[in-house]
């Protein structure tokens, strides 16, 4: 079963927050993923197994109730990337059936998980663009993250 994977260099970049503020490794994945989602499918990136660390196979702890929302957000991006309109029932069905698996604890098929991880891998590069240096304090990180996220989404909407 495919698992969430996070880039090794992303874990290093979040080193201070992992030591002092984040309670979960998955927080690193989450902020990378959301940055990737904000930037859109064109920033998706593959990463080799050697360059990534394996995380959990299901949405952990505080992310458990938010897992389906994250999958929903992922589906909106993938449908858009494939040019599938929500009126095209058959195409929507095909894409959803391919990416989602009810048997998986993370609700994603193996292919779905591969694509899901690509948003996080590419999202780390987006974070590097947003921050001049690696984050040292949580408050500073969160405020800068939100500011850049808003700016990024405005840019995406405008373009």
């Amino acid at each position: 079963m495919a698992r969430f994977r996070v880039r090794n260099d992303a874990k290093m970049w979040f080193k201070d927050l992992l030591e002092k503020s984040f309670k979960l490794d998955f927080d690193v994945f989450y902020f990378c993923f959301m940055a990737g989602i904000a930037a859109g499918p064109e920033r998706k990136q593959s990463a080799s197994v050697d360059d990534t660390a394996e995380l959990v196979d299901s949405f952990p702890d505080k992310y458990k109730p938010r897992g389906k929302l994250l999958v929903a957000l992922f589906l909106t991006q993938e449908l858009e990337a494939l040019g599938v309109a929500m009126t095209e029932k058959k195409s929507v069905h095909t894409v959803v059936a391919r990416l989602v698996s009810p048997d998986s604890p993370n609700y994603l098929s193996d292919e779905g998980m591969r694509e899901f991880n690509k948003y996080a891998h590419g999202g780390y590069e987006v974070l590097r663009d947003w921050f001049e240096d690696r984050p040292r304090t949580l408050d500073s990180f969160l405020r800068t993250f939100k500011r850049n996220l808003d700016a990024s989404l405005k840019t995406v909407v405008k373009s």
Partner: protein
Amino acid sequence: MPAVMRILGWKAEGLRCPDHEISCADSEGRPSQIVLIQMPNGTGKTTTLDLLRATLSGSARDGKWEVARVKEYQKKGALNSDGVFEVRLLLNDKRVTIIMYFDFESGRIHYKTTRGSGQEDGFDPPNEFKRFLHDNFVNFFVFDGELAEHLLDKTRTDAELVVEALFQINSIVNVRQSVADYWQTKAENTEVTEGDATKKQLKLNRWRERLDSLLAEQARLTAEREQLILRLERQRDTYNHEIQKETTRSQALNAANNKAAGLKQKVAEEAGELLDAMRDPHALSASFATAMFELKTGLDRVKLPESAAREFFEELAAEPDCICGRPIDDEIREIIRQRAAQYMGSDDVALLNAMKTTIQEAVGASQVEPENSLNDQLSALDKLVAEATAARNDLNELEFEAERADPAVKEAKEEIDQLEVEVNRKDRDLDKFESADASLGVEKTFGIEVIKKKIKDSEKKLAEITQTIGMKQKRDILMEILESAYTKARQGIASDICAEANRRIQELMPNNNIMIDRIDKSLVLSGQGGGSVGENLSVAYGFLATLFDRSDHQLPFIVDSPAAPIDLAIRPTIAELIPKLTGQFVAFTISSERDRFVPQLEAAAGTAVEYITLFRKGGSDLENAARKEPDHAETDDGIRVRGKSFFNDFQIDVEEVG
């Protein structure tokens, strides 16, 4: 396990030889030890021998015979378009029948094999007989004068081949091939030269040295940093001590310090709460919330998931009638099954519905409210951070004033600033050891985990190479042993066979001075290339008698004209040798061979000899005489008589064509 093969008989129909059936078994079905079949030249003796070889070797299967060659076997002037040759065998006491079917129209032959399990298409003798029942070996037990010539022909390898096959020396060659194949498979994906291993070992040593050096440097820097931290803490104590010497200033500083620390703590707490709020993806941005909601409403609009799941239709397709009461035939059933695939499974339906419910609960009421709420939290945090910054600035101002008023405080502060710079520098120096960037390569990166992983991978690879080299050394030793075993086995067996065969040849031809010198692919005779046809046949008998006598396997001998080319003087000796040569001797003879051969053979055998005469119809006197015999069988074009007196009275050597 020794292989024991006996011929029980054969049958020919629709072929160039007269239709006939020969039994090589007694009245109780036991294989006869000696069977003499007298056929005048021209009645299809060679054809029958060829058919026996082809049936026993499977040499005509899979279109190996050309059409013209197949058609050569068609009965002359006949209208039939097919023919059959069937050989009945006893293989290790089990009956096996191999049949060749000739289709003269298409020029094709196909085989059938009947064994205990029933009749199967194709040539399929039991496995333990396959090494004897093939093209190269059959000629050694179904043979004629040509074999003797082949055994002595330097350009052929028949003699060596029969020795290797009978004594299974080939199995050493097969073991060698298996060892070579195994090695090839193992070595295919691995570098194998010792030079490669040495290079890898040297590289690995360099990497280990680099890792040791970096670990030492990291340990040194960590120790230096710890010393700096200790000095920093001591210096802060000194600073606090100096700055608080004056009471009024001390009170103001403590108040400012407490305020700054309290606000810092509040900022950390607020940030923790904000982090939890930001874990809601729909709170991060209204555009995310809107996208999720649009997904939900879009799915509702296209009715995904449907109210019916795929399983409903699959179950319906299995029913004899539809829910409307109409019967479901196979065509409709197939359509329902195909269209069921367009529906989601019940698990998919449940998941998609749960997702829609979660979206509804999160953003159904409002897509902007979650972000607004988050922004409120952010604003509160911003405010708190500003307050904390201001409190920190107030504290800094008080500290600055104290430093200006007291040089000792100033000095302590400068020392602290210097130490903090040094600690930061050490932190930066130590950061490089935690690099996860594998793209730089071991020689350039400082990432300790990267190097450790590379070393681990390299150690694994080196272990594989080392194992492969070890295996190669073992392979070389094993190949040498097998080569030596093969050579010694061949030489030893060949030498023993030569000595024994020469003893027999000496008995057969005491005055001819013919000896086998050695087996070097062919039989090499001492001092000469070969003798007369009769002498060569005698050498072949001597050689084959020795071979088959020494082997555990028992095969029949089917021989064309066993005595014809041999001098009358030698014939009795050959006749005495034959019963020792094999457990079953089937010979095709002509009447002129009887003299000084048949009586001696019967005497030496010590058992009943089957006398069979087979000739093509055409001479009425002969036919009438044959018909008077009690054991005769007549076909459209041939008569077969069983019996010694008819055999001995038969005087035709060559069929009269007419």
